[in-house]
């Protein structure tokens, strides 16, 4: 980026709230797993429900409304790992966003 670009950038404004919304959109779109050819959004409710089932084999409707046979214990482990991965990234980026004070730091 040359000096003219930098000067122009310094004139610009930055919307913190929008950046946080974009972050939320990006992280929520990644909160999903695939299992046995099915596609599942990771939610706290789904994790709780699967945890309750223990090691049972159950049939769940995935996000494409396809019934998928799952091992609850296996799927909850995968979901839990994904949940941790995404939420930790979300937290890290959220903390970084808080440090942005002006457009030139974007």
């Amino acid at each position, binding site marked *: 980026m040359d000096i003219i670009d930098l000067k122009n950038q310094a004139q610009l*404004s930055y919307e913190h709230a929008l950046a946080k919304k*974009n*972050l939320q959109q990006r992280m929520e779109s990644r909160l999903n797993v695939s299992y046995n050819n099915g596609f599942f959004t990771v939610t706290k409710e789904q994790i709780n429900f699967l945890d309750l089932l223990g090691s049972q084999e159950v049939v769940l409707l995935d996000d*494409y409304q396809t019934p998928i046979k799952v091992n609850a214990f296996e799927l909850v482990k995968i979901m839990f790992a994904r949940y941790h991965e995404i939420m930790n990234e979300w937290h890290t980026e959220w903390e970084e966003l808080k440090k942005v004070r002006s457009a030139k730091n974007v």
Partner: protein
Amino acid sequence: MSDVGAVIIANNTDEFDYIKLAEISANKIKTNLNIPVALITGKQVVSPCFDKVIIQTPKETNTRYIREQSRRITWLNMDRTRVYDLSPWDRTLVVDADFFVHTDTLSNHLKTNVDFSIARQMYDPVTGNDYVMKMGKTQIDQCWATVMIFNKCSLSKMMFDMAEYTFEHWEYYHKLYRFNYSPFRNDYAFTIASHLLGGYGSKHFDIADYKLCNCDFNTEIAEINDNNILVTYKKLVNNQVKSYIQRIKSDVHIQHKISLFERLP
């Protein structure tokens, strides 16, 4: 599914280096989705960015009016309906060259076995709003051929054949669905195909829970990086036009072609 990969169609025009754009897009796909990428183009291309290059003479020239420059540009985008036959993969992710994959969001969609899915839900990263674009005066939900995932199967074959049929009878469908005759839009062809094959709208073929992040014609590109883009945009605040900047790290579709090509590294 044994063979999963992406397909990008790109043909250079007199003004724009679409192959270069496709190279950038391919690198981002490989980094974030870890799948091979095939390029469909009119002339031989030697590039390490593509695992396969499929030569196919572009069908026709399309034109689009660029408001900022008050002129028409040409682009060669009429081959989307041939992707079903040309794709070397069993399960294919088709993306526009101006769609940048910055996350692994699509990865789990590629691991499912859904036969055909296409983007419909949208997200605007400069307003933070979700929306669904409507097509023509009939106002049916518009699908975006920018991102499609399909298996080689009878449903997908029908979908692509129907979209091709729409192009062949564009005059008829433009009157039936009451949209502008020009330009020819892949989005419209696949919207009509999805509408007809989905029982006149009773079934959608959405990529589940996927919102296509779209930078529209008013959002300019300031910088293209490995895992994000910097955009500038204007908003009216207290009767004054104010300029803003935002870094976009989502998968993103860019419609402002002039600024996009100006900022190609």
